[in-house]
């Protein structure tokens, strides 16, 4: 196949047919809304409301706690019930603002007003993005306004929309591209206004032919934008591998930023959020969530207000048809396993995937036979088999020497391992240990 891609990668069962053809349903929250103060990389936001305060849709309730941080915006109108620790998807317990929904959805002034982005200055656009509390919605949660403010904006020659959606089972980005492609292209045009030397590229896996067709039609008369179909292969949507595929071979390592390769990369939902904020004065208060898996009664896609309880989202999809053995926030390759659904939808939530069978438990670990499949599939070109040997001895120095810190935790090695060894899991711990060690030294 002549399509662009990277070296390595795997082909897990896609499972997208469960929800790919289900249009996005708007769902309204039922109970209280929970807004954790840390929904992004960087310093937690600082609450600027107190118990008993009235809030409106679109009102800022916590402000960025530093340069790398982001505001938190209320997605409903109602009363602040308190600020208390709450469980979130990754298992940690975070300080969160609890808002009681009055069900009226009264908005702040100017909410939803149309705006002509071409009349805005670059700084104005960046400020709007910051005000809207937008962070990378693909999972990392890096504050978008920071990403849009590289050291040298003239050195950026690619603005890349990550539309690969390589994670199995997820269809939220696909639905957005099918239903609101003009918003995606609009958001990209806003971004291109910030970078005079850049061209916009929408990188999308070729397993979404209809979306590709739709977008190609839409950008026909946009000289600065092109659609770049990519091979369907996990993890094609990994930022570094997407850059490699789209730019024809630019590589960045784990210590570099996309801007070091002249790129700004944002995923579909983030670009749409930029459009909503800049052109429609709507801050980040919604997320598209795929509810899927063989345990779910009616797998489908929802537009959900941030802070909504996962239980409500599941209920909207008809609940369970079979008892699940595993529930995941996100997809099966990189998602977080859940032990409770009493958690809020956050900026980086993308899906709720529930399986009746846990493939991890069903495949017991056996001895490594040194088959080398982990090396063949590793998109980071490291040596998982040897890194695992280092991890088993907790040898941090050897782990670093083997470029263990270049692991992107995509899980390809663990997926392919015929001995079913928990490679990625060990690497995550080792990487944390190495980082803790570095902090201690610093």
């Amino acid at each position: 196949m002549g399509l662009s891609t990277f070296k390595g990668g795997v082909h897990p069962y896609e499972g997208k047919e469960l929800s790919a053809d289900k249009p996005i349903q708007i769902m309204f929250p039922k109970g209280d809304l929970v807004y954790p103060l840390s929904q992004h990389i960087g310093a937690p936001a600082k609450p600027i409301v107190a118990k008993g305060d009235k809030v409106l849709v679109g009102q800022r309730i916590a402000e960025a706690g530093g340069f790398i941080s982001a505001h938190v915006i209320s997605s409903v109108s109602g009363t602040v019930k308190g600020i208390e620790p709450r469980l979130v998807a990754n298992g940690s317990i975070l300080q969160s603002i609890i808002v009681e929904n009055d069900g009226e959805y009264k908005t702040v002034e100017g909410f939803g007003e149309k705006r002509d982005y071409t009349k805005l200055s670059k700084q104005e656009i960046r400020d709007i993005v910051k005000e809207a509390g937008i962070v990378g919605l693909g999972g990392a949660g890096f504050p978008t306004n920071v990403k849009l403010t590289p050291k040298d904006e003239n050195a950026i020659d690619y603005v890349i929309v990550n539309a690969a959606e390589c994670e199995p089972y997820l269809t939220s980005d696909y639905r957005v591209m099918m239903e609101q492609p003009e918003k995606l292209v609009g958001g990209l045009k806003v971004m291109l206004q910030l970078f005079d030397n850049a061209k916009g590229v929408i990188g999308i896996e070729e397993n979404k032919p209809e979306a590709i067709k739709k977008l190609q039609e839409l950008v026909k008369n946009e000289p600065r934008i092109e659609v770049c179909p990519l091979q369907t292969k996990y993890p094609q949507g990994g930022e570094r591998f997407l850059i490699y595929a789209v730019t024809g071979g630019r590589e960045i390592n784990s210590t570099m930023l996309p801007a070091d390769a002249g790129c700004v990369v944002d995923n579909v939902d983030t670009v749409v959020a930029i459009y909503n904020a800049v052109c429609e004065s709507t801050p980040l208060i919604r997320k598209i969530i795929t509810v899927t898996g063989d345990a779910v009664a009616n797998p489908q896609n929802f537009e959900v207000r941030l802070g909504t309880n996962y239980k409500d989202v599941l209920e909207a999809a008809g609940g369970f048809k079979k008892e699940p053995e595993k529930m995941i926030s996100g997809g099966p390759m990189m998602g977080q396993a859940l032990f409770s659904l009493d958690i809020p939808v956050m900026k980086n939530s993308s899906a709720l995937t529930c399986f009746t069978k846990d493939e991890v438990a069903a495949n017991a670990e056996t001895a490594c036979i040194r088959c080398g499949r982990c090396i063949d599939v590793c998109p980071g070109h490291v040596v998982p088999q040897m890194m695992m040997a280092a991890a088993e001895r907790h040898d941090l120095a050897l782990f670093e020497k083997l470029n263990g810190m270049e692991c992107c935790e995509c899980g390809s090695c663990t997926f392919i391992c015929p001995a079913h060894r928990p490679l990625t899991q060990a690497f995550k711990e080792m990487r944390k240990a190495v980082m803790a060690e570095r902090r201690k030294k610093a």
Partner: protein
Amino acid sequence: MAKLLNVSSSPHVRSKVSTKNIMYDVAIAMVPALIWGVMQFGIRSLIVVAATVASCMLSEYAFEKYMKKPITITDGSALVTGMILGLNMPPSIPVWIPCLGGVFAIIIVKQLYGGLGQNWMNPALAARCFLLISFASSMTQFTDPATDAIASATPLAVMKSGGEVAWMDLFIGKIPGTIGEVSAVALLIGAAYLLYKKVISIRIPGTYILTFAIFAFIFGRQDVNYVLAQVFGGGLIFGAFFMATDYVTSPITPKGQIVFGICLGILTGLFRIFGGSAEGVSYAIIFCNILVPLIEKVTLPTAFGKGGKKNGSK
């Protein structure tokens, strides 16, 4: 909820490939060679292979039972070792010799070093070499399938003493030799299956055979028939596709596999053309097994973003 949820770190899905089905694929791939062996040398060769397999699996079971380790005989690795060893035996060998070889392969070479994945020598080959040294005459008495009598010399020995052998006979397998090594075509069918199933890559066998062919052409005879006969004779095909590719005892890095194949080609050529014996594949592979950690050390891949040509911005 009655049932507790499973919570584990991502990824939450696994591919369908497992150690077991890899091992069974390797076993299946040896079946054409086994069938050819039985057709050529009679039912006795099937008994030899069956006895070797049984000996390997029983040794594994007994050792693990005695050491109170989990019993792993169903993973197929002892079956594969047994088949390789059995196919490396002359058809007329007294059955107790390959059985002893099986015990040696599994207990001494594999289990004493820690079991599956830990041995640094190919168990079947180590056992073959052990038997070759210990029972030299039984191990080198080959039946000529044409006459059913003991053959005077293997094709390689004929070539070594300056004689000519038609390469087509070696390719098809109408020659004296061990049960499994005689028919290149039967072995290549199995090899194609392994390549198709992506159990092995062409890196090791390809570089091995190519390097050896070049070596034989330069230092042997500048004659196509000679080179082809060398390639298809003496277990080179069997060794290249089924023994040199053994995961445990070959380099894990892609570049290392190429280096490994080249080393094998050169050593096999040296042993066959300049050495005392006409054979060389088994010793070459075992010798290169020892080099594996060293080869891996110098052939680590460059991590993504660390040294690529287009590294970073323009």
